[in-house]
């Protein structure tokens, strides 16, 4: 029983990390109809940004989080720059071109990471609470995992509020529903796209920074998350913020529970869940057939 409880919480923690990557993908796919593989590049920016800031030294949690926010902001600005310089020229082309264009950007950034930092893994900063745990209902939990869960919830709420309670959110929803109609009504669609792409980069950069504590920072940093995040977006519903969160947590918890009984089939179950979800609810977990693409 303890093991099952422990796995539930482990799934929650991993799902929160996955959500941080997936929400960026979901926003660009939902609003801009853009399958953005450049998110791999933003993960790299986030990871190496933290390495550049702190090296391998010991840092307090507060300083580390401040660093993550700073790196995420810079990554967001770089993402905005990429959108202006390259991505927006691809919107009018068939779907394959933006996909290839963003993937090419990812490869360019990966190449730059190899050029500047080499191919080897870089040791990352030692954050004070990373190796500490706390007791809850008789079980031991990682403090850093709890922090990631909290970060996931904060970002979920913040994005939901932005989309549903602000003027920018109104423009975003209008653009997601019908970009031509939104343009005719005076919404600067290009600016909305720029904001969403930059926000997506910021969120993924934030995830990249936070994950340096757990993962090796090298040019293939975070590659595992790209495909898994894509699965989460499909299961949760393209552009659905809450759906993305539920899918990330749900799929991760399922995988964690399968590990208890049969670890070798855990990842197979993850992708099987995607197949089931696509067949059962192709519009996403929280939508019904025929509902709008609104966020």
């Amino acid at each position, binding site marked *: 029983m303890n093991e099952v409880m422990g796995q539930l919480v482990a799934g929650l923690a991993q799902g929160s*990390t996955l959500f941080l990557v997936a929400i960026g993908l979901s926003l660009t796919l939902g609003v801009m109809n853009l399958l953005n593989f450049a998110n791999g590049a933003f993960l790299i920016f986030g990871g190496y940004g933290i390495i*550049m800031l702190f090296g*391998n030294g010991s840092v307090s949690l507060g300083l580390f989080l401040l660093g993550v926010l700073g790196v995420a902001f810079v990554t967001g600005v770089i993402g905005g720059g990429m959108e202006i310089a390259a991505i927006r020229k691809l919107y009018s082309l068939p779907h394959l071109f933006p996909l290839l264009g963003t993937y090419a950007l990812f490869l360019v950034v990966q190449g730059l990471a190899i050029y500047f930092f080499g191919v080897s893994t870089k040791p990352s900063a030692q954050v004070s609470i990373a190796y500490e745990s706390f007791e809850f209902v008789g079980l031991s939990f990682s403090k850093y995992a709890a922090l990631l869960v909290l970060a996931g919830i904060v970002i979920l709420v913040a994005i939901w509020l932005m989309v549903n309670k602000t003027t920018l959110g109104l423009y975003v929803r209008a653009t997601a529903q019908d970009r031509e109609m939104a343009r005719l009504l005076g919404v600067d669609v290009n600016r909305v796209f720029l904001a969403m792409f930059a926000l997506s980069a910021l969120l993924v950069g934030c995830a990249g920074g936070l994950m340096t504590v757990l*993962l090796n920072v090298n040019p293939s940093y975070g590659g595992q998350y790209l495909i898994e995040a894509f699965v989460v977006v499909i299961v949760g519903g393209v552009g659905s913020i809450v759906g993305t969160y539920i899918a990330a947590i749900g799929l991760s918890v399922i995988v964690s529970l399968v590990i208890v009984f049969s670890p070798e089939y855990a990842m197979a179950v993850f992708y099987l869940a995607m197949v089931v979800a696509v067949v059962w609810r192709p519009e996403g977990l929280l939508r019904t057939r025929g509902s709008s693409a609104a966020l």
Partner: protein
Amino acid sequence: MRKHTLNKILVSSIALSALVFAVACGNDGKGSSGSESLPPPTGSSAAQSSDAVESAASSDSATNEELTPITIGVLAPISGPLPNIGEAMQRGYTIAAKLLSGPSTGFDISLKIADTQYDPTVAVQQFRQLASDGSVAVIQGLPSSSSCKAVSEVATALKQVYIGDCIDASLLDNPSPYFVMGAAGAPSLAHGAAARVHDRFPDVLEWDTYALDYVTGRGVVSNFESGIGEWNGVLGKSVWAPLDATDVRPFLTSLQQATPVGSNKGLMVYAFGDLGSSFLKQASTVELPDRYKVIVWVNADDLALKGVGAALPEIEAVTDVMTEAYLPMDDGLLAKFIEEYQSEYGMYPPDQATKSLKELQVGISAAKKANSTKSSDIQKVLVGLHPETLKGDTVIDEKHYLEQSVVGGTCKGDASDPKGRNFICENVSVITF
């Protein structure tokens, strides 16, 4: 007005970001990579890379007309998922060729290093290209277990000697007479790990395992179970992680919840490269080092250990090469190799680089004994070869192992290193089993 303000915000943000990155780069940017950084890959395609890298090793000795020119082909994963290993091999072979060229061997060694991208298809293509070159006497290097199987079959067809550093030679049901394992495979390491932990921790009888879920991972756990069974050790919980997973926390949590702090259990971990250091990083967050009396990392390599840095918990590392283990038995060549490597790259040679020296010794020893640079002549003497330059037990059996030495050490991160890139290994020894 609003547009004007947004533009100002955007411009200010870009300027601020550029400033932050400039400051950060100034602190630890390009300068930090220094001699550790790999030059851009030698070619984007397999065909390009095979002839792109040729060692200048022979330049010093080329003037000596007594020396016989010999060309060694090397398969190395210069790009792909394990480029750090390819980098160490490339550097190690280049220095080794320089050191081994000369009157002591009678050869003037040239290298042709081909990038396998850690891909079996590319490895076979590169092998064929090197073999068809005509000048290549022996092909060596590291592709992967599956590549070994494919390359072994091609080696027979082309009658080209291949001395491979493959993970698992047991995959070769019917190995080619032209195929020779250069060093101990992962299943042998598992036997070695079982022997070492019994010597050092005789009271730890119950062992859990964490291994990568593919055929070699299964073979490692099976051999480990067989090894500990010889001294009444028992296998407990086995966790299998996907081969490509970097975030393995749920897999580790299942070990965490099953093992109380301070238990008298051991954990055997089979992971290679960065997958091993990922494991150690995440294992620390769920206190596995506190819950297991001893953690053994089978197939540990120092490049991956560096990725963990000062946070490396104390572990038993078992691998096929550990430079320090060979130093006491050194005849001077290894010490010279280390000196050259440090002078050239500003760092202690990684295990993979040292292994390159040892493997090149095998190929050159065989050619010397055959007194020929023809692949077919070298193949004949490899049967039964026992090169004196090699250390440890040397055996040729039906799987064509050339060397079966396994090395173990107790390793931990060096907290006194401000960059945290060193680790300290003590009690290093060659394991016989």
